[in-house]
């Protein structure tokens, strides 16, 4: 039916790969600032990071829906690699006919307020402005950016080693978020963007990537909470036998299910070839997943007691990412405002027809 066999197989094999190679030790090590090179190599060998590209460009013409499903698995395992960023960078660079390479990539700008301006300079270009908090920029072999050119948005692709030295930063999951300042930075090539590829499209697809990864991280938090509650004994019985705990876990499972469903709603829109619909369905997804994460993190921690508050125990790998990702590529209030503004603009009588898709 809705989930295709290919998707299911891909998810299972990604699940096995992460299970073996994305252990807590690997995530902990990556959080100290060392790139998880072995994990990246293994994921890269599956072809998933660039699978959306046409076969002619070294991809597999894969469905975006499948690749986003893979991001959910990556989110479940707190994978400390720029998988979403590489997918999106590859998409932009290949649509614009720019260089791709086969290493980890990052993409930007990821912040709505960033300004990057490209001007002509003889046969080449000059780039000015700031790309703040680019994920993994200090580890990326290539950086793909959408910038404001003289006649509209353009894409540039630069080698990591030639880029300005990033100012290192990180989110509260210790994932690198590095800021690059371009001061009359010279580039020999820049390319126009085809229809459908734009800064707005990057922003929303980035938001959907985070929403999807969050739905995976929520699955992990819920799995840990349910398992722990059945093992932890207090007052002579597993705490899962107490009704108050059961009710918390029931709500946690509801919020997890909602998050997966909301992310899927966004993912579904990718195959419909309707940018307006894609924009508001992804806005709905990021809004709903963000809300779910806030409540679910609270509950998953509550069920765990003090152990969940330690570095030793894995729950924090999921929750610190959830608290980071819900703010990245636009927070849930930011996207909720877009949903509200969109539907108010369409008028009350169009709410239902738009929602039902006609």
């Amino acid at each position, binding site marked *: *039916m*809705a*989930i295709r066999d290919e998707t299911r197989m891909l998810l299972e094999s990604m699940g096995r790969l992460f299970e073996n190679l994305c252990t807590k030790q690997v995530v902990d090590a990556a959080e100290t600032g060392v790139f998880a090179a072995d994990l990246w190599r293994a994921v890269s060998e599956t072809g998933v990071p660039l699978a959306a590209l046409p076969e002619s460009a070294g991809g597999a013409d894969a469905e975006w829906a499948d690749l986003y499903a893979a991001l959910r698995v990556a989110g*479940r395992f707190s994978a400390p690699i720029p998988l979403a960023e590489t997918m999106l960078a590859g998409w932009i660079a290949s649509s614009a006919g720019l260089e791709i390479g086969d290493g980890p990539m990052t993409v930007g700008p990821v912040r709505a307020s960033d300004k990057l301006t490209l001007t002509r300079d003889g046969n080449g270009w000059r780039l000015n402005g700031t790309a703040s908090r680019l994920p993994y920029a200090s580890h990326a072999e290539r950086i793909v950016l959408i910038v404001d050119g003289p006649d509209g948005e353009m894409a540039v692709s630069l080698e990591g080693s030639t880029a300005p030295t990033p100012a290192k930063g990180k989110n509260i999951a210790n994932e690198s978020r590095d800021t690059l300042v371009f001061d009359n930075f010279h580039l020999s090539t820049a390319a126009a963007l085809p229809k459908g590829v734009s800064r707005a499209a990057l922003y929303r697809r980035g938001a959907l990537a985070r929403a999807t990864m969050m739905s995976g991280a929520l*699955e*992990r938090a*819920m*799995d840990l909470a*349910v*398992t722990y*509650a*059945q093992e932890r004994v207090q007052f002579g019985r597993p705490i*899962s*036998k107490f*009704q108050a705990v*059961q*009710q918390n*876990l*029931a*709500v946690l*499972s*509801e919020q*997890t*299910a*909602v998050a*997966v*469903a*909301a992310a*899927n*709603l966004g*993912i*579904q829109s990718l195959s419909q070839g309707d940018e307006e619909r894609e924009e508001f*369905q992804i*806005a*709905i997804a990021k*809004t*709903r997943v963000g*809300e779910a994460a806030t409540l679910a993190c609270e509950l998953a921690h509550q069920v765990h007691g003090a152990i969940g508050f330690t570095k030793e125990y894995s729950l924090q790998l999921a929750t610190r990412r959830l608290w980071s990702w819900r703010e990245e590529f636009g927070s*849930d*209030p930011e*996207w*909720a*405002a*877009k*949903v*509200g*503004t969109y*539907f*108010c*603009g369409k*008028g*009350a*009588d169009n*709410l*239902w027809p738009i*929602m*039902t*898709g*006609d």
Partner: protein
Amino acid sequence: MATPMFRFDPVELPPEAIKLRGEVRAFIEEHKDVMGFSRGEHNPEFSQAMGKKGWIGMTWPKQYGGHERSSFERYVVIEEMLVAGAPLSAHYTGDRQSGPNILRFGTEEQKSYFCPKIAAGELTFCIGMSEPNSGSDVAGTRTRAVKVEGGYRINGTKLWTSNAHNADYAILFCKMAVDEEQANDRHAGATQFLLDLKLPGIEIRPVINLLGEHHFNEIFLTDVFVPDHLLLGKEGNGWNQLTSELAFERSAPDRFLVFFQMLQQMIRMAGPNPDKATAVALGKLISQLATLRSMSVSIAGMLAEGLQPNNESAVVKDLGTRYEQDIPVVARQLFPSEPELEAIDVYETMIARSTMNAPRLSIQGGTREILRGIIARGLGLR
């Protein structure tokens, strides 16, 4: 992962369901004058008109008055009707749960008699489950049936029975005497009957709700004689049958569309250029609704595949009532007004009706706590 996850695989409505939507909207437009807000009125003419369209018992076998259409088509008809505020009471319970339960457990004779009449919108059913001392604890029923020559003699009291004053039949849940070795089994002896509400010994008294409306009732049964052929299913199998009936009840999309028109009204009042806070608040509600709807379509997909999405239905009902109860809360923050039931201003009436109706949503059809208990069982915790 070892933990069971409730899956709502994304589903696209099939073309026949999409095609039907236009037809349903045209029908609603024709019957515009009977649409309302959160009233669910009893309107047999409207139900019969829907019956003529083939929109009751849509998924049932043709042999029993059904139309053998998909659960997606049924889903579309129901969601359009709910959004419009159509008066569905005269057939909704029969369509949603009594009919399906008769089809599942009834005799050939019962199926041939009741189901075509329900599908025609000519027979109204109600749910005879709750009692003064048995609410969430349905198995604690004190209504007793005793086998007598040619039938059963029934005594007891039912309470909160919605629409009983307009209904022809109730599916009655009660107990029969059990052997001593079964005495510890709380579900032993449970039995269901198709109860003709016109029988001697039945008295139906209104219970006025807090809106001042006559919606539910108390039913007194004094030595009511029910003939053998109106036993539903088997003696002692009532618990099993009731569980199935409740699953039919909960899988319907009617737990998040009750206040839809109020969301629309808020969008109208916000205007085309809302301020940030208004846009955020409305955007959150719309995002919740869109997600609930996609989960509900997914449930229709599970039903189409012959699955029994009992846990998933409990999830959607619990989330759906939370969302509905938030609507008047958000409304009064965005657009303060003093609620009045029969106000000239539509919005004042809506905020009055939604505020006053909100509490029932997480009580009827299984309370919030009971639903979460079902979900916890689905997680393997109990």
